[in-house]
């Protein structure tokens, strides 16, 4: 699994901070703009009867300038039965199988998920990831 964000460059991270927790879940690097959004919606994951907050069927497309497996073009992700927090960690975990670097753009049918991912992949002084519209995704 490639390390998508060097720990010494992450938003507010210390070099010793883990990129994954003990359950091997990627740690979202969204300490600034989207942190509250993720936190609020994460609580919904504890309510098994609340499907309304799930992003099932959401499509995400991510730039992949440095593919890991000889592929070409962007990565296409279709979100399963997941909250915003779960979906974000799943996309990040998925991209780790395909990419050796970070995406420069992300597009999604969920603007909230796109915002979270763009912030995660934007590391001050190291990389920038912007949200683009689905219609702007290169063919």
């Amino acid at each position, binding site marked *: 699994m490639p390390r998508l964000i060097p720990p010494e460059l992450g938003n507010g991270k210390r070099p010793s901070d883990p990129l994954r927790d003990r359950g*091997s879940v990627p740690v979202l690097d969204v300490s600034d703009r989207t942190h509250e959004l993720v936190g609020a919606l994460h609580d919904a994951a504890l309510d098994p009867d609340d499907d309304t907050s799930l992003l099932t069927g959401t499509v995400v497309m991510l730039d992949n300038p440095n593919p890991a497996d000889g592929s070409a073009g962007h990565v296409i992700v279709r979100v399963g039965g997941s909250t915003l927090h779960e979906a974000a960690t*799943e996309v990040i975990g998925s991209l780790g*199988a395909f990419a050796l670097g970070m995406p420069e753009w992300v597009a999604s049918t969920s603007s909230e998920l796109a915002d979270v991912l763009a912030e995660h992949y934007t590391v001050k002084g190291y990389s920038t990831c912007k949200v683009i519209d689905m219609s702007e995704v290169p063919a």
Partner: protein
Amino acid sequence: MTRVAVGRDIESDSLLGFVAGYRGTATTAPTATTFTTDGVNIPVNSVVGRIISTGTVFGVIQSNTSAANSVLTIDRWYAADALPATAGTAAATTPAAGTWQILPGNAPGAYMGLTATATAAVDGDTALTGEITTSGGGLIRSLATYAHTAAGTTTTLTKTFTCNGSDSLPVTVAQIGIFQGVVAAASRMIFRTVLNATMAFSLSGDQGQVTETVTL
């Protein structure tokens, strides 16, 4: 990862089984798990794993009889634009009798189930022994997130599981299964995989992520 025997059948039909299907107009009302074709005789169990579409829903066929009016047994009814997130999600409404068709090719599978059982997988496995099915729990079978990139050799199914107060904790997950559908007692298994590291869930809110990487 063990690609079990049934999984190979599913892969074969999904990739290459572009053969004629069936269609008709049913007059017998479907039930939650059966569909009577009314006037179409389908060779016994020849459409297992295929999709029957009727009205606004579809089902994944688990078996079929050969008779003047073949009867299909499905796992449940699904709405294509609202796939169930977990095994706890209610089935789509049972359709009324009407026009129907069975499409070529098997249904794909992206549902992931968990078990604490560490028993080694074998080729003939058709179920994930000890699958966690706790009602209302966060560790029950769930629709995983699919990822692929053009011309790539791999596809991933990734799921972050979040346990909740309904789960029986603590539990240490040792294996997963990938299934064609969401019904624990019915939907067919494609892969059974021993995790490279177990996942321990102790308290409500604990999370663990599994990525199943499949090379095609």
